[in-house]
């Protein structure tokens, strides 16, 4: 797997973009400025980043309730995302969707999803369209360890493999479905072992190592593009925040959290790039500053944007 310096810096940038975005969302939620539920991706940035770095614009993804990272990595515009999360008319979904439903079909983003396990069957459908039309595009389905048990996910893996669909199932195993540890929700340790149930390759990678994710997903994407069918990549990771903002996290202890914070995927990549002389501290600061600016512009955009007006409520139900 050859990967250029430029690509690595791009990934570093994307991960920071997600981190900064999520940190801002966290603050806004704490301030009561964001309605509804917000599920943050902090700590898991390497997965969306590494996986989406293997994709083309025309490739598709299906995302989850914890979707901001996926959307940013697939090219989502921070302005339109932030506006949506604020419920503004200028957001990706005109304020109708919110955090759990951001979508940008033109970028191949078939939506965050409020239903655990909702994405797999839809990813198959997109992949089927590619296969039918003879396009060498792929669909990536992100799903959690909790979602791995859902019937829809398992059905989707079976259909994808029976039909050799160009799908990559990217499992984000962060150890919990809300409060339920994987040790209680399933008897196996590695979700990747389920790949054998559908005769597809199953790989476990360090989900906090963006290069490892990139590499594993690249190979799966190559297979998919070349008509060799679906793959399952399990990325072991951890969410630093609660399940949703406001979660008191009674089900896990602070040491566990700390041990994972020490394995910060961003710092990990940064150190590597610095060691290899690819990224100087100055360049790193520059990137972060530029992102901060972009983010503040997005925040300003979101803040200044109007709320939707009540007449719009009944629009967009039917085409």
């Amino acid at each position, binding site marked *: 797997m050859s990967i250029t310096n430029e690509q690595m810096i791009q990934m570093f940038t994307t991960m920071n973009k997600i981190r900064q975005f999520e940190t801002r969302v966290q603050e806004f939620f704490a301030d009561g400025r964001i309605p509804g539920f917000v599920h943050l991706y902090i700590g898991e940035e390497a997965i969306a980043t590494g996986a989406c770095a293997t994709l083309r614009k025309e490739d598709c993804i299906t995302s989850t309730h914890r979707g901001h990272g996926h959307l940013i990595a697939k090219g989502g515009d921070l302005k339109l995302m932030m506006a949506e999360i604020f419920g503004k008319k200028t957001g990706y979904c005109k304020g109708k*969707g919110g955090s759990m439903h951001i979508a940008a079909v033109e970028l191949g983003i078939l*939506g965050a999803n409020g239903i655990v396990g909702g994405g797999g*069957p839809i990813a198959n459908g997109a992949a*089927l369209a590619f296969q039918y039309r003879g396009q060498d595009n792929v669909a990536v389905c992100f799903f959690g360890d909790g979602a791995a048990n859902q019937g829809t996910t398992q059905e989707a893996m079976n259909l994808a493999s029976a039909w050799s669909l160009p799908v990559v199932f990217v499992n984000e195993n962060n150890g919990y479905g809300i409060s339920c540890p994987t040790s209680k929700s399933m008897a196996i340790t590695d979700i990747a072992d389920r790949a054998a149930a559908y005769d597809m390759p199953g790989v476990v990678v360090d989900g906090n190592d963006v290069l490892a994710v990139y590499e594993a997903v690249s190979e799966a994407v190559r297979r998919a593009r070349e008509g060799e069918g679906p793959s399952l990549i399990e990325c072991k990771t951890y969410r630093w925040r609660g399940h949703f903002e406001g979660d008191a996290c009674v089900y896990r202890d602070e040491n566990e959290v700390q041990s994972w914070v020490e394995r910060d995927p961003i710092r990990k990549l940064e150190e590597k790039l610095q060691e290899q002389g690819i990224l100087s501290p100055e360049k790193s600061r520059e990137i972060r500053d530029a992102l901060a600016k972009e983010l503040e512009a997005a925040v300003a955009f979101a803040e200044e944007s109007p709320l939707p007006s009540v007449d719009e409520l009944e629009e967009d*139900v*039917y085409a």
Partner: protein
Amino acid sequence: MATKTYLQALNEAMRQEMERDPEVFILGEDVGQFGGCFGVTQGLFETFGEARVKDTPITESAIVGAATGAAAMGMRPVCEIMFVDFIGVALDQLYNQAAKMRFMFGGKAKIPMVLRAPQGAGIGAAAQHSQSLEAWFAHVPGLKVVMPSTPYDAKGLLIAAIRDDNPVVFLEHKILYGIEGEVPDEPYTIELGKAKVQREGNDVTIVATAAMVHTALEAAEQLAADGIDAEVIDPRSLTPLDIDTIIDSVKKTHGLLIVHEAVRKGGVGGEIAAQVAEQAFDFLDAPIMRIGAPFTPVPFSPPLEKAFIPDAGAVVGAVKQMRG
């Protein structure tokens, strides 16, 4: 124009749409060489091949989801759920995904898919293979819901459904597959949301759906013998619902009876009755009546199943009671 069965009309609709538009394809259990459990997709596999007539595993969520995802990418899938009763294992993909995507995404997606499924009792298939569930679908914003009652309507409505840019739940009554009627050979569409007056009359309006249209027509003949001239209206689609045609009729006849095979409690009869009661109250000479199945699962044994399904006698009785 030729005489065709309801089943042939549906089959022809799919065939012609597949010929017209390469993005139309079919998926479902046993829809390929087997031709579908009731034979509705017969011959399509032979003509269009495996790429366009796709047999699936027995995983309805994956079927509906595949249709939804493909539709989001601009294709026009027609998926078959072998019996509507099975929708319970796949409903999420339909109402939380396909139906809501456009709205949730701020109008930036189209989901041009059709979900076909046979409904209804009458063949001894019992509680899990005989239900009429249209009321569930009609309560879901984002779905269109179509229920043809004749071969002519079956073809025109199915072509319209396939060309529609929204998810359309297309409910066929299995007892109607064999009925015959005149059906043009060329493709044609019937606009979704337009009721059809199946029989004109001045004395009472009977709104009926699917197989009950025929029951209502049979009852209307019996009523005619007694000098009661019933108008029979088939809404044909429940979403959109052509309430205006119904109300115009009620303004003329001053009486309304609604007949469906679904269990009466919570059925679409309530919705239609309520809309008419709201909008044409002053025109009504008698209480609106509804006929539907009793509040039980569909029983297996023939005499029980027969008692479960509303019949012409019940329709005649209700009309006489209304006028009585």
